[in-house]
């Protein structure tokens, strides 16, 4: 691992010097003269523009403090005791809580101008996942289910959307068909439950029960040719295909080397990220991994440091692993949360909810890293520059995936919806 990091940072230093030279010395025209003609048409390169096929979505549940992680306010009393550290991109700082991620800064686009109008957990999570505010009369789909609806499975044997830890509000299939629903893996180390034939059954007996079920269902499904009925038996077919597939191995994190497992961290979020990598390797489209415990109304600084250790180790290992496997070009890694925390430190050494400015991170899938996008004000209370609303953020993810964000989809009751509501993608992040 050390070897890799050294090499990566060397290359990046070279890149950085080149970029600095371009902007300070105006040498970019010289280099384009030197480059071969086909190089000049860089727009056709696979290294610019939206490229994402799959998504790993890391959700920080409870409201991750932006001030103590990605949006430092050094020299202000609101910062508290947290210090900044250097990253592998010269001149940038991340919190000392994220020492491993700082070595991957060259891949990350950190957005420090996130804005939500939802200040409560449940509503905030729902909004972040679905781009719509929660209401009693309709369930909006999450991005994973939208992706499945428009683009389908790539691996016919595995479910397209997997959630590890919990299914967050607003991240279900909503009003879309049941077959786009996420599969929940509660414990990443236990893997997929009930996926083997019971030991008291032989293959033949199992086949017999299946054909019996089909016979029993036959009359019913002939009489009621409805989407709900057919999707019910499709669920059986999917399950059976999965049971027979070699791809079932994807769920076994225990088959990884112990050193790899340790690198991600011996906790369920770390192992969840490792499982996410294994699933994305086999073209599952959208994997969400949740890390809770960010609701730091009391004892903010110790708890954020503790949680950050888990996040830092797992996400850094994930980014390194994806990079080595050449998967970062087509995998978009998202880090987000429902809101940030207040600059004001309360009497319990805590920070309260702050939806008017917070941080999120995008990596891979065509995102150009090594940069901060947007700014919060001098204390981190509100957005000062380039506000990114929750729908804008989701529109950016959808754009990276090539999804038609301006398409209108009608719910079963005839209401028009869009993948990211009225959000507009930030194209700047892709160039």
């Amino acid at each position, binding site marked *: 691992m050390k*070897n890799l990091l050294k090499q990566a940072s060397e*290359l990046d230093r070279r890149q950085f010097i080149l970029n600095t030279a371009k902007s300070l010395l105006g040498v970019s025209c010289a280099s384009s003269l030197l480059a071969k003609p086909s190089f000049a048409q860089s727009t056709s390169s*696979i290294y610019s523009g939206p*490229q994402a096929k799959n998504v790993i979505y890391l959700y920080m549940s409870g409201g991750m403090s932006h001030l103590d992680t990605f949006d430092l306010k050094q020299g202000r009393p609101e910062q508290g005791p947290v210090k900044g550290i250097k990253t592998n991109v010269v001149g940038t700082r991340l919190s000392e809580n994220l020492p491993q991620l700082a070595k991957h800064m060259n891949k990350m686009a950190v957005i420090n101008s996130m804005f939500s109008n939802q200040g409560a957990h449940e509503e905030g999570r729902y909004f972040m996942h679905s781009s719509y505010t929660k209401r009693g009369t309709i369930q909006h789909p999450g991005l994973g289910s939208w992706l499945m609806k428009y683009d389908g499975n790539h691996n016919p044997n595995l479910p397209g959307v997997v959630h590890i830890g919990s299914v967050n509000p607003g991240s279900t299939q909503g009003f879309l068909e049941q077959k786009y629903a996420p599969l929940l893996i509660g414990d990443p180390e236990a893997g997929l439950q009930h996926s083997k034939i019971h030991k008291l059954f032989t293959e033949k007996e199992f086949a017999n029960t299946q054909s019996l079920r089909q016979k029993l269902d036959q009359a019913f499904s002939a009489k009621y040719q409805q989407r709900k009925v057919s999707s019910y038996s499709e669920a059986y077919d999917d399950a059976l295909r999965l049971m027979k597939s070699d791809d079932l191995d994807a769920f076994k994190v225990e088959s990884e080397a112990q050193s790899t497992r340790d690198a991600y961290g011996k906790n369920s979020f770390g192992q969840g990220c490792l499982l996410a990598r294994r699933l994305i390797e086999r*073209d599952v489209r959208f994997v969400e991994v949740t890390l809770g415990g960010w609701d730091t109304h009391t004892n903010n600084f110790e708890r954020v440091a503790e949680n950050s250790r888990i996040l830092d180790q797992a996400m850094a290992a994930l980014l390194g692993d994806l990079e080595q496997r*050449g998967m970062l070009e087509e995998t978009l890694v998202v880090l987000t949360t429902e809101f940030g925390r207040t600059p004001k430190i309360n009497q319990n050494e805590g920070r309260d909810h702050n939806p008017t400015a917070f941080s999120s991170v995008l990596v891979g899938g065509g995102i150009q890293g090594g940069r901060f996008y947007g700014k919060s004000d001098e204390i981190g209370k509100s957005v000062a520059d380039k506000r990114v609303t929750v729908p804008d953020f989701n529109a950016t993810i959808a754009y990276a995936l*090539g999804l038609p964000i*301006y398409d209108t989809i009608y719910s079963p009751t005839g*209401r028009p919806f869009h993948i990211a509501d009225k959000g507009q993608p930030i194209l700047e992040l892709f160039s």
Partner: protein
Amino acid sequence: MKFKSYLFTVPSLLLSLAGYSGAVFSAQKLTFSQDILPIFEAKCLKCHSDEKQKGELRLDTKEWILKGGESGDVLIPFKPEYSDVYVLAALPDYDPDYMPSKGKGLTPAELETLRSWIQQGAQFEVESAETAAEASMDMTIQQAHPTQTEVKSQVKIKQVSYQLKPNEKAAIEQLKQLGVKVDHVHYDQSKYELILSYAKLNDDNFPQQSLIKLADRLTKIDFARLPIGDASLASLTKLSKLSYLDLRQTKITDKGLAHLNDLPQLEYLNLYGTSISDHGLAKLNNLTQLKSIYLTNTRVTQQGIKKLVQRYPNLKVSYIAS
């Protein structure tokens, strides 16, 4: 006229209300005071004005309408299909979100008026000296509620469209039959990408002819984990547009790598988890566009990489010595 306390201070406005005739055609330029307010008065203001503000929404003046309600904007000029004030009223009346929730709904003619007004840009007033004073009031509201009044213009997404030739269509059909995932590159229908990993393929049933028929369009191919070897690599040489080649965990060997020199556009080459060694790398000598190569979990050594980088000084090499 049950509601008397409007915020309006412009006398001409009330006059124009009185002169409202009811018949509206979508061709004419509609304005709020003449065409829309009468509809709102009849159908909406009972719950959305000074007396009640259900859903934290008022629809009696421009400022309140632009401020929106508890779930955000209700009016997006030029976009009736995004504007809840229209969308909810246009729902079927049995929908739980249908507006108005009590009393008679908008007639089809009224709905069409509302839709056209939004489509035309949701004009509130004819610009005049009196309305200049209101404009300054807008500014204060905008500052107080920055989220609600800002309407972002739609970001233009570049799209390339392309009509497939019949033989290309046929090739795509054949590949799909085999279980190959065929897709065009995001927003560019003239370029295609394939995932072959889930088509039960090996060197013997490799769909060489179909790939060659698509050669002008094929820019990305993913072979990850397929049991294909050097014979299949040999049949890729005609894919002159290929820029992305994922051979992760396939059965290719050093011998086969020489074939890749025939791919002039190759930018991305993934050899992760293959049995490639320094000898194979030495054969790569004609890939002028190559930008990244993935060599972890192979038999390659630092020595071999050093020589490769001498030939390709700008190449990004991903490699951890095992």
